[in-house]
């Protein structure tokens, strides 16, 4: 029953809605413009719908039910106050094309969150238009391209370490660049010499994640900036891991020219099963003229307005004003935390990750031993001997009631298990997780088949993913 599709609940004559009776004459269009009823659309009651989705929800795990240690995803507590504030009718019912004078509240809010991000980034301006990290990446690289083009040569390449997230090269390519991959060194970071050698005249920028996807901070970051700047290139920082150093250090102070922040990570806006998000981008002075238009400005008289007058702007990267109501949630969170709270986030997030690292290092192989910040990446090296692999360990964790970590990423670690607990987690929860991981390591020794055949207790067990891709069934048919 639970797994029936809503379409399979459909029964002739059922109804899930009511509208007021039509109070004007019913109008028609020429028949050729009007369709018949949407064939095969559902006929269900409100009861059917609520039952269906309530049951579906029970097939998901959630951050409110327990640790959700997806590395790089920063699955932290999503405060309910943010949801309440975002639903304030004055925000929820405001319209994106209203004249500035009618939406002074919204504009003030945008102005304040930009100021707050400017301070967090240590950068002079921030665009709030991008609605996700990848969208911010594209926006950032487009600005770099425009700036270089303006100074005569847009250049050809973006340098990206082999540890980077897939969106980095994808975004760079969409912005019109080719990618040159940088090999990581034994610490998992970028060697200053490797970089120096790679930064040729036709390199537009280095796109680097700080700390990187191993959670390791690029200690040479300032020197990276110097090398790039000397060659007229830019330093782009993927800020997905900002949670590890917010309030402790500022990208702008590291010589970073562009950074995006995933507000759905560091700033607690809920992931919603995949989105929405927001990916504001902060830029250094050199790039300010190229920010997407419009920008939010404050006039002498204290009123706010959208400024469309930026001749060098790359243009708008989305209709309307970005994911405004995600920004509302994020600003609510920033205010709830305050300066000390934001710093505390980084401190406890890093403490929690290193606690897990300390407790699990005996049981799992640590491919890169460099000190890590908010996340720790193990591998399945110790388990492969028994022919148990990362995927098996991940699935087995489900039987212990935990969502698995991110797996097989970063690509520079074979069989990666990428664990990010965030600052939200209480010690008891971390201990329960570590106990489970250690128990599984033991199972790998003693009962490998048990782990290989996991999960055993989930609503569905291991799926035939090959079949899904080989003979794609991407929609229901009657």
């Amino acid at each position, binding site marked *: 029953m639970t797994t029936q599709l809503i379409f399979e609940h459909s029964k002739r004559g059922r109804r899930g809605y009511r509208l007021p009776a039509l109070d004007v004459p019913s109008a028609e269009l020429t028949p050729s413009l009007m369709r018949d009823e*949407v064939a095969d659309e559902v006929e269900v009651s409100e009861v059917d719908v609520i039952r269906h989705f309530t049951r579906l929800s029970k097939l998901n795990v959630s951050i409110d039910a327990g640790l959700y240690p997806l590395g790089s995803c920063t699955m932290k507590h999503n405060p309910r106050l943010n949801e309440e504030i975002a639903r304030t009718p004055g*925000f929820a019912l405001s319209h994106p094309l209203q004249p500035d004078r009618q939406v002074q509240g919204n504009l003030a809010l945008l102005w304040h969150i930009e100021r707050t991000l400017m301070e967090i980034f240590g950068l002079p301006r921030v665009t709030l238009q991008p609605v996700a990290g990848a969208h911010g990446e594209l926006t950032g690289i487009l600005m770099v391209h425009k700036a270089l083009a303006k100074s005569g040569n847009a250049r050809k390449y973006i340098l990206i370490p082999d540890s980077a997230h897939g969106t980095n090269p994808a975004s760079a390519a969409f912005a019109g660049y080719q990618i040159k991959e940088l090999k990581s060194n034994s610490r998992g970071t970028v060697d200053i010499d490797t970089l120096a050698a790679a930064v040729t005249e036709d390199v537009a920028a280095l796109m680097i994640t700080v700390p990187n996807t191993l959670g390791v901070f690029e200690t040479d970051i300032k020197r990276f900036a110097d090398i790039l700047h000397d060659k007229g290139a830019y330093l782009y920082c993927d800020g997905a891991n900002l949670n590890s*150093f917010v309030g402790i250090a500022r990208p702008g102070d590291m010589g970073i020219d562009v950074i995006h922040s995933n507000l759905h990570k560091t700033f607690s806006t809920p992931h919603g099963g*995949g989105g929405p998000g927001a990916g504001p981008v902060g830029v250094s002075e050199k790039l300010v003229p190229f920010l997407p238009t419009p920008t939010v400005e404050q006039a002498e008289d204290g009123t706010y307005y959208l400024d469309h007058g930026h001749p060098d702007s790359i243009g708008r990267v989305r209709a309307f004003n970005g994911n405004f109501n995600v920004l509302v949630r994020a600003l609510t969170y920033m205010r709830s935390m305050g300066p000390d709270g934001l710093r505390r986030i980084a401190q406890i997030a890093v403490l929690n990750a290193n606690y897990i690292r300390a407790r699990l290092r005996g049981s799992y192989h640590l491919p890169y031993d460099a000190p890590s910040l908010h996340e720790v990446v193990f591998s399945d090296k110790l388990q492969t001997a028994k022919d148990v692999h990362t995927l098996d360990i991940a699935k087995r964790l489900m039987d212990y009631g935990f969502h698995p970590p991110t797996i097989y990423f970063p690509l520079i670690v074979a069989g990666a298990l990428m664990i990010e607990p965030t600052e939200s987690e209480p010690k008891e929860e971390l201990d329960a997780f570590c106990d489970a991981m250690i128990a599984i390591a033991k199972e790998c020794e003693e009962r490998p088949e048990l782990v290989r055949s996991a999960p055993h207790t989930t609503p569905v067990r291991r*799926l035939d993913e090959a079949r899904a891709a080989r003979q794609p069934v991407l929609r229901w048919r009657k």
Partner: protein
Amino acid sequence: MTLPDPLTDQHRYISNASQDVSEMLEVIGIDSIDALFETIPDDVKLKELLNIPGPWSEIESRRWFRALAAKNLTAVDHVSFLGGGAYLHYQPACIDQLLLRAEFLTSYTPYQPEVSQGTLQSIFEYQTHQCLLTGLDVANASLYDGSTGLCEAVLLAERVVRNRKKVVIAKSVHPQYTETVRTYLQNLGYEIVEVGWTSDGRIDTAALREACTSDVFAVAVQSPNFLGVIEDYDAVAQIADAAGAVKIAVIAEATSLGILTPPGAHGFDIVVGEGQAWGVPTQYGGPFVGFMVVKDALKRHMPGRLVGETVDVDGKRAYVLTLATREQHIRRGKATSNICTNEALIALAANMYLSLMGKEGLREVGQQCLSKAAYLRAELQKIGSVILPFSGPVYNEFVVRTPFPADEILADLEHQKILGGIPLGQFYEGYDNEFLVAVTELHTREHLDQLVAALTASISRERR
């Protein structure tokens, strides 16, 4: 920098307090949290706290944010006729309360299908609704919004056709969508050709025929278009086909799919659009949800996530993210798109909305919008000096012209507690006296009559 004693100001969102911290430091074998940050060079470390407000209690946050919200003039206490790509439709009460269930609200992209079937099955259902509504074969899990959706559609078309350099976009496609496409394409060496409209507000087919040269890889039209006029899909398709261009239909008012013949029925290859009208609040423009549906032949070029049906080891039906080789995490620089986080929660809301309204409701919404727009048009035309400049068929939105600047008229309506429409001058040269008016099933006849009376008053005021 040392951690202030948590007891002095422990934070409610951070569980671990001083006792936990010391227990954990001991296990790690260090004596301060600072030791964990040694890899960050001192010269980039902040010497003081960030200069930002807070920490605020919920009480203080409620005061401040509510005061801001109260500064906005909105449909809360005005009758609103604003549309232009963001529409205020009926929002069923159960949807928002279901969305607040943590299992939907706080979960991540369903990478681990065994513990994410709720999200996965819902996306599969959402994809199905999109196919049924548009008359095409394969829908994805969502894109950021309609404007970025159009960008993805154009790039998809180019991947399919290859070696052509031009895309034709109707001038009556949402201007901010086209602006966004311009931004996306700026470094890729493609040219955007815009084609205007004729007196009926439909695309100028003669000009379109001219524009559709052999190096055009795609033609994009919106229907109902930004002027509210319903395009002649067949006429457009014919011309595009002659040029061997991919046919892209843009939908900015999703409820129109409940009553207007869908692009799929006219042989369009790609339908891309904005799903906000399916009961999502206008919330100043986001989050919204972009949808894309394509012919089966194009599915491996599809941007974004796709959910497919399969079985588990016990043969039980189940759902999973599939055809991932298109995506950035596998293809990296060669992916069909850079999108990762999408608008899943809004797509879930849309699935709920479409399921509640169902076969009958989707049609009734369309019928009511159509009828109320027709009634309002008729009433407006009774006002001397009000002109409806475009003669083409409309759904729930249309252009109104008065002898006076739209900005002045709308400002006057605002004083009468009416948000009367969107001035067209900001989008099109020489349209300073025109504005866009949208109605939905939420408007009562009284609301419509109110606008007519108010506009009459505004005009006579202007005359003085």
